[in-house]
């Protein structure tokens, strides 16, 4: 399912990043960073909600928009019942839509927001997402102070909140088209190797996007997957080549690999993950590159693993999904 949009543009983006991300190579591109994972709150869950709230405030400020200008906010995160999104949006009084597709949530939000705007029914939409290393560890794995050893293939949930403001006014950066992903099952069962779970979904969505739009990978200056990590990235390049005969290696990268310095930040293992991982990279560095016209066409492919701890304990396969959106510099 691929759509093209006529008049949807990126007004502004905002990123609030945690301490591990602030030590990474993209530090200077973030709007705001913080040192303590509690971020002045009593619990990890409220700390996550606060980062998201700050990113929403920031994107309004950067775009010089008032609360009343926003027609709807579309938000999602990893917490049970997407509480980070609810608790962070409450004080703004925006009409609210909550969504979930794990780490593919950021692009799902952009797709929905863009479709709303393109329909002519609304003018300004915020799509936002967050994750928090500690709240995710607590929900999906062991108590945070346990420090259970992990294999090299494991990824590290990024901490932060990120928002994008979409509008119907021409800002020079256009949301050009999008492809909605399908849920795939490649019989993967290892929650500590998410790259292998999500790579087929990324490949499927990239392939269908290129088919539907009648394009080759070199149409884009950059193709970015969300959080496949070091090994998932290798798997995707290999799988794209053997399965679809498409070589993406020349202009492809993964946000999970870009968010951290994998050489010095050994604790992140194979790289970053979580819904905010791709958003932190895309809404900071990539937006900056688009604004400065260093790149003109970019395909953002956010990848999500669909499962819960319960399903993993019941030995069910981990499902995956990937949504793609194409951004272009016009004028």
């Amino acid at each position: 399912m691929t759509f093209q949009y006529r008049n949807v543009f990126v007004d502004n983006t905002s990123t609030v990043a945690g301490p591990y991300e602030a030590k990474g190579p993209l530090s200077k591109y973030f709007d705001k960073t913080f040192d303590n994972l509690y971020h002045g709150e009593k619990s990890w869950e409220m700390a996550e909600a606060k980062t998201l709230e700050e990113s929403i405030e920031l994107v309004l400020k950067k775009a010089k928009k008032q609360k009343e200008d926003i027609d709807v906010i579309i938000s999602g995160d990893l917490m049970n019942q997407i509480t980070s999104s609810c608790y962070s949006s409450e004080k703004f009084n925006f009409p609210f839509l909550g969504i979930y597709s794990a780490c593919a949530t950021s692009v799902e939000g952009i797709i929905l927001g863009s479709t709303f705007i393109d329909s002519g029914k609304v003018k300004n939409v915020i799509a936002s997402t967050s994750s928090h290393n500690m709240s995710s560890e607590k929900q999906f794995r062991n108590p945070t102070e346990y420090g259970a050893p992990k294999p090299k293939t494991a990824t590290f949930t990024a901490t932060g909140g990120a928002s994008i403001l979409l509008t119907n006014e021409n800002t020079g950066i256009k949301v050009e088209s999008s492809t909605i992903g399908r849920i795939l099952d490649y019989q993967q069962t290892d929650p500590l190797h998410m790259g292998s779970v999500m790579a087929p979904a990324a490949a499927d969505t990239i392939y269908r996007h290129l088919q539907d739009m009648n394009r080759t990978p070199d149409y884009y200056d950059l193709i970015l997957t969300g959080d496949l990590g070091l090994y998932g990235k290798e798997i995707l390049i290999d799988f794209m080549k053997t399965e679809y005969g498409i070589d993406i290696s020349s202009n492809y990268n993964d946000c999970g690999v870009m968010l951290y310095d994998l050489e010095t930040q050994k604790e992140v293992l194979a790289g970053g993950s979580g819904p905010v991982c791709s958003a932190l990279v895309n809404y900071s560095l990539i937006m900056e590159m688009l604004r400065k016209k260093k790149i003109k066409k970019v395909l953002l492919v956010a990848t999500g693993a669909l499962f819960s701890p319960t399903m993993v304990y019941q030995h069910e396969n981990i499902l995956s999904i990937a949504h793609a959106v194409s951004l272009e510099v016009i004028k």
Partner: protein
Amino acid sequence: MLLLGDMMEKKKYEEIVNKHKPTETRGQNAFIAFVTGGLVGVIGQVLTELYVGWFDISTKDASTFMLVTLIFLASLFTALGFFDKWVTFCKCGLIIPITGFAHSMTSAGIEYKKEGPIFGLGSNIFKLAGSVILYGVVSAWFFGLLRLIIMGG
């Protein structure tokens, strides 16, 4: 046929995944766990000997004192926030000894304190240690029974 094709495709994918799988440093991990686990054992032995000397008690009583000491230290270090880093490094060297048991309870206790004394701390403190207790009791019962049957008590 479709299903067969599907299976083939997924088998082919598994091969790609395995091709890009990094090799874990198992030998190194085992060595670190062996040395650090051994060190915990040495500390335990030294403590036992010291307690026997200092308090003039039996070795059996001294080893109980030693266990309490190790449990206290592991819990204290977890609460101070650096024991998880030691566990990540030493792995089973610290998880298998009594230190691991204490650490699993303290870390769960810290984590779920915010949900209150009943639904947080009370229901979750044995989140990791619960299995150890359950299967410890079950296997103790089982081996006790075996001993009774084979050796007559």
